[in-house]
């Protein structure tokens, strides 16, 4: 493959910085929706062959609820909001109790998670838009429950199989669930993953560079 398709380490750093802005915004939204504290990791940006993608994402091998949206506008790609299957009911109930209230009562857990994914994608992309002046939108969310690797293989197959320049942006949020009975807390990890197309990753980096103060 040609070298100009690959991002340099410096460009990957820019991308990480940029996604950190989005992740911060999305974490605030998630925290408000669920009415709980949130711990946020620095986004992980991987550049690797499509075939190796599922081995680096932290949910490998486990059943998950996966909310898929497409990113459209100045940058194209796919967005996935991923919740471990065993946490879906708890998170849905938390959302019902917190900000979203009665509006969601009685809907299926997956619908609630679709809505959460929708709002997170909105706040994530808005932060990037505000900083970089890129027009970014996302499509209507669709949720499926299965093993993550099975869910993304169609996406991977449609990408350039030869290149080792596939970009994965992995944001991990730890939802802190405080127990009512004991003074202990648990954490549930959820993921917000972006797969920009190779061309879009380049233009994301360019717009970030332009937006940075001299």
């Amino acid at each position, binding site marked *: 493959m040609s070298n100009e398709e690959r991002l340099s380490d410096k460009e990957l750093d820019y991308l990480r910085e940029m996604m950190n802005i989005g992740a911060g915004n999305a974490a605030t939204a998630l925290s408000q929706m669920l009415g709980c504290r949130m711990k946020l990791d620095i986004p992980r940006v991987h550049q690797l062959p499509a075939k190796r993608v599922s081995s680096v994402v932290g949910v490998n091998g486990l059943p998950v609820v996966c909310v898929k949206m497409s990113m459209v506008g100045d940058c194209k790609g796919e967005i996935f909001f991923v919740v471990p299957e065993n946490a879906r009911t708890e998170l849905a109930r938390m959302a019902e109790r917190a900000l979203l209230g009665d509006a969601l009562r009685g809907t299926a857990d997956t619908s609630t998670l679709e809505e959460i994914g929708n709002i997170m994608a909105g706040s994530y992309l808005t932060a990037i838009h505000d900083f970089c002046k890129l027009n970014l939108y996302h499509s209507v969310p669709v949720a*499926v429950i299965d093993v993550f690797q099975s*869910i993304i293989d169609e996406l991977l*197959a449609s990408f*350039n*199989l*030869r290149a080792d320049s596939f970009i994965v942006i992995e944001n991990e949020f730890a939802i802190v669930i405080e127990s009512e009975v004991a003074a202990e807390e648990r954490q549930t990890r959820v993921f917000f993953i972006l797969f920009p197309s190779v061309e879009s990753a380049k233009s994301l980096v360019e717009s970030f560079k332009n937006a940075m103060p001299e």
Partner: protein
Amino acid sequence: MIITVGMGEGIVAAAPHILRAIGCGSCVILTLYECERKVGGLAHIMLPRKAALARRPAPEGEDKYCYADTAISSLLEQLRKMGVLRKNIVARMAGGAGMFPSYSVADAGIGRQNIESVRDILRREGIHLAGWDTGGNHGRNVEFHLDSGRVVVTAFGRADREI
């Protein structure tokens, strides 16, 4: 020993090994088996044919198991070199799901295209397709036992199934 075959990979081996492929959505897992010698091959196929859907196909050889046509000819060639007669080979396949609902009627989805491509090629090559578990909207794992030729399909939230 259990050998895990990743996306776009393929392998030919003999008993008592078990070949395994996990997390297969739209991909198709194809197994070829010859019971006399207890040898077989497994390919974790991603696309229906070379250069049809891949925007820029890889250099020759590197990605031969990614595509149904090159994967099948490669497995057959390796089995032939081991002295296996084509008429004794039995094929089974699993996968080819459509994980997300498609909004386009015209687009059959990669999963469906993979299934049809594998079926067509097997028919053309004169290989008997003995069992399959394909389509639907769920992922699958496959275990291929080379001592018996058994192919077991497991899926999240479903009973195990031998094909």
